[in-house]
């Protein structure tokens, strides 16, 4: 479990440093996706602390269930993250017409007063 947790944090940090260090705007957005994947994995991990069984009420088997609340919550967050990602990609598409290399420092220089 703690190994998994370490992997989750490594994913989050990888994404975060990708946002800072990657020069290409597209790569920055993908890094942000990596970071959000890490956060989502963390929710799933915490939900599985109490047990691994799927929390569906049935008379088939009983045992220690995974906590359904964080999973339900993260579903909302996934959808929101997804739509933001889509929105940003549209923005980048528009910017790519005049800045084909998508270098964020160049775009920033051209568009800051």
């Amino acid at each position, binding site marked *: 479990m703690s190994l998994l947790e370490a992997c989750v944090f490594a994913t989050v940090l990888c994404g*975060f440093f990708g946002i800072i260090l990657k020069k290409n705007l597209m790569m920055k957005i993908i890094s942000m996706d990596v970071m*959000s994947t890490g956060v989502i994995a963390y*929710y799933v991990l*915490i939900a599985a602390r109490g047990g691994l069984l799927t929390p569906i009420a049935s008379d088939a088997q009983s045992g220690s269930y995974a906590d359904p*609340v964080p999973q339900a919550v993260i579903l*909302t967050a996934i959808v*929101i993250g997804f739509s933001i990602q889509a929105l940003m990609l549209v923005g980048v598409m528009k*910017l790519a017409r005049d800045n084909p290399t998508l270098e964020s420092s160049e*775009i*920033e220089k051209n568009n800051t007063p």
Partner: protein
Amino acid sequence: MSNLLSTGLELLTQGSAIADPISLALRDTAPVAIVWMAIPFFVGFSSYLLPKLHRYLALGIALMSLVYGLQQLWAPVPLTVQLLDQFGVTLLIDSLSGYFIVTNALVTAAVVLYCWQTGKSAFFYTQMMILHGSLNAVFICADFISLYVALEVIGIASFLLIAYPRTNRSIWVALRYLFVSNTAMLFYLMGALLVYQASHTFAFTGLQNAPTEAIALIMVGLLTKGGIFVSGLWLPLTHSEAETPVSALLSGIVVKAGVFPLVRCALIVDNLGPLLGIFSVGTALLGVAYAVVETDTKRLLALSTISQLGFVLVAPAMAGFYALTHGLAKTALFLISGNLPSRSFQTLRQTPLYAPLWAALAIACLSVTGFPLLAGFGAKVLTLKDLEPWQAIALNLAAVGTVIALAKFLFLPVATQSKDAAPHTMPQGFWWAMILLLGSLVAANGLYLEVYTVTEMLKALLILGVGCLVHIVLVQRVVLKLPRMFERLDHLIGMMSLTLTALFWMVLT
């Protein structure tokens, strides 16, 4: 938003089944709150079907919120709604929410009036209504997940509003805003999970026994979203490069969506107060230091917003009233500065202003500086009343700095005759918006009449005098340029990690 809505509908249908006395009393008010919260979204989307009506619908929604918010100001008991059980959505509506809702309503109404004749498309008004609705949701929610959803909707709606002109610059500014806010919200989401892990609820009250890292993660998200201290350095560019009505919305109310949860948490959790005290003093001084040397009108206003947020945050009990007065005045200032002949103070000093325009500008500036007769005075007095000595000294210093910065507007030349003035063609709704905003600033005095004592009035005049004096002696002659390096995207994101580290360290000690 969908989970909030579905649980709301569930409550509506099950309302009759609830039997215990407290719920019985709430049965009438809770559905009203939920319906009121949901209407802007329904109307916003359906305004596409009624293209001729979108302006009226937007104005109607703002007025509806105004009525609802005013009602909450005088509500005897706070309304608490718990949908489902401890895991579900928690709402808390009291006078603090009331102030923020009223601010939201007045700012939105003023911006709609301003845009009335400018030919904005239905898309613009739809986004504005959705923004209005999600802001309302922030001001009434009391759990971290509803807050997360509302804040993200605000981020999306603001992105679309900033990018509305579809120029490269506006798209870049919007993209940068969404980048910073979404990264901050990812940290926040991790913090929310740690709160849940500790107390098996997402409600704000769970923060009391949450681990220190949860507090640090949540705070870094909200501080960034609210534009406070170094994590708020994204704000000057975003607010100054957006279109006039959008920057008025952003500065007037949208940043307060980040501040409100901090205030709410500070009122619930005791040990958060000192921490926020440090940040609010820091942001008050940082914003003012940048604003004093600024030479661009809109950037100066945006930097002054950073500084004023410190005043909102420093006294959580009085935050509502301060946010109201600041929101009204700052919206007016942004709308006016969009109609000045130039954005550079250097050019403005050579072109005499149309007298009524200058008068409106002066009233709004004086309210921010805390001049008696305007509501800003009462807000400042109440905020500075019960502070620690070091905070009071720092904030009085920041108040003088605010005067120095805004004196640049006050000392602009005025044309004695209308024909000497710089060309002034304002949108038709401009004066209606001004009447609404400035009228409310005067009317809001009535909420706290007891602050008008001789000593306080003398103190306010002294601050104004000192500020103007410093402006005349020093600022008009010296030109200083501060580096804008820290406003680059990489630095903004990097700053987030530094803030996070600092917060960890501060929470631990």
